[in-house]
């Protein structure tokens, strides 16, 4: 019997995998405080103020100060909560986010000291499905967290996230079908390689790109789709009852999901580790190109957050089911027709 792991590209020795896991984990997690600070600084500038500038030079130590503050908070849980689920829910959120980070390809296979190393955690032949599977499990983190808190605000928040996640995951998945058909593969590295031959998919798949991005805003619970945690009416959504490290975990997972959605957008539509205009990209430059492009998408996320007001609940559902889903279906059909006829 072949294990599912055998379909995963394991061209390199096992210890390379461990080193890669550590490196990706370390770099991926270091991005979070940077993005946190970047977001607060940029939001400030978008609104005509400075943003954090007190802790350290230019406020660079602000994320550290936040973490120290939150980590030293007293751990508590409401009397009505379900202890086990209340503890495990933030962990599910983080786990799924970190697991998805593994499939983001940062570069092609390169030769490091005589060992062939693929610059990605793993390259399963079902890459996109893997990402969606973990996206689906991530929903349990929010749902269980909100439900196990034993508070009506948390519960309402988690119900909203559940409805939102389900509605938008469909459009997001359908938006990618066009890309998958054009690349002829689900593997993320093969999709990038197909783009170096056919040109970036943002051109022919512009509709898919827009739908994927909009659904990505909704997936990561960010403005203008941040109504699961609408501060004004729901206090803090599913994480209302979490303080200290539980709260950190949820925030952490949210930002990590943002990085992953941006990185996936880069991989699927923006040519991954390829430089634009057909410039030659050396193998070692791949990770920097991917991180640079990811940063650009994250800037877009922040920009949109600073601009758009939150949608009403029925508007959110209308957009998801009546506009994005038909558009994504149409996009799939048109792509399929064009691929077959030409």
């Amino acid at each position, binding site marked *: 019997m072949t294990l599912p792991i055998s379909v995963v590209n394991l061209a390199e020795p096992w210890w390379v995998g461990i080193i890669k896991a550590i490196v990706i984990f370390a770099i991926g997690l270091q991005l979070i405080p940077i993005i946190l600070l970047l977001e607060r600084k*940029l939001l*400030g*500038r*978008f*609104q*005509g*103020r*400075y943003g954090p500038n007190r802790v350290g030079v230019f406020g660079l130590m602000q994320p550290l100060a936040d973490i120290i503050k939150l980590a030293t908070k007293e751990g508590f849980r409401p009397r009505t909560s379900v202890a086990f689920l209340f503890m495990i829910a933030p962990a599910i959120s983080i786990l799924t986010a970190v697991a998805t980070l593994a499939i983001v390809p940062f570069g092609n296979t390169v030769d490091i000291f005589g060992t062939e190393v693929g610059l990605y955690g793993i390259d399963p032949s079902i890459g996109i499905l893997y990402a969606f599977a973990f996206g689906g499990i991530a929903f349990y983190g929010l749902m269980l967290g909100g439900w196990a808190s034993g508070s009506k605000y948390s519960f309402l928040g988690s119900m909203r996230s559940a409805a939102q996640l389900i509605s938008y995951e469909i459009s997001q998945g359908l938006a990618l079908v066009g890309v998958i058909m054009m690349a002829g593969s689900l593997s993320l590295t093969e999709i990038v390689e197909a783009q170096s031959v056919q040109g970036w998919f943002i051109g022919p798949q512009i509709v898919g790109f827009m739908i994927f991005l909009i659904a990505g805003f909704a997936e990561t619970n960010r403005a203008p789709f941040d109504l699961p945690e609408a501060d004004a009416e729901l206090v803090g959504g599913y994480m209302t009852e979490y303080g200290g490290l539980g709260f950190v975990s949820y925030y952490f997972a949210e930002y990590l999901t943002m990085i992953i959605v941006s990185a996936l957008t880069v991989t699927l539509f923006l040519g991954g580790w390829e430089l634009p205009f057909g410039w030659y990209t050396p193998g070692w430059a791949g990770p920097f190109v991917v991180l640079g492009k990811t940063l650009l998408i994250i800037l877009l996320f922040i*920009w*949109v957050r*600073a*601009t*758009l007001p939150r949608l009403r609940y029925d508007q959110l559902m209308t957009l998801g089911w009546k*506009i994005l889903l038909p558009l994504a279906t149409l996009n799939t059909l048109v792509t399929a027709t064009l691929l077959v006829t030409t």
Partner: protein
Amino acid sequence: MADLRDEDVIAVQRGPKAGVARGTYRAFGETLRGLKTTLARVAEKPLTIQYPEEKTPVFPRFRGRHKLHKFEDSGLEKCVGCSLCAAACPADCIRVVAAENDPEDRVSAGERYAAVYEINMSRCIFCGYCEVACPFDAITMGHDYELSDLNRSDLIFTKEMLLAEPLERTPLRTEDE
């Protein structure tokens, strides 16, 4: 409950409802316009005033912490202990105890002087009535507004504190500002 179906009710005039294509176009265009607006803010300097280091200049007539005055030539206090300020004070935060002047060693220019003059700054509402009530311009409102303290009793300003030359901690607005 009044019947709302009368002529007082104003019907809201709404434009024609946009179709799907037009509505989408409009929403998209407005989104782009919003994005442009926010991006334009990045190029501008932030409006924030970095408070403890940087202070908003106050207007000359700003009503901050009170000052008691002396005559510049003789050095005598202007306050004659008439208690009109205490009477005018709506917050009742001024306490004046008057005493007869000793002709040998005068404290104020008048017949009497304020032996005790206290303003409780934690109760003062900075209305400036004391300044208006004073017949000798002995008390005026200064410009200092940084009056926080760790102890309530420290906020009761005595005569010596009010007479002392205040630390000018507040920038004054110039003519053209």
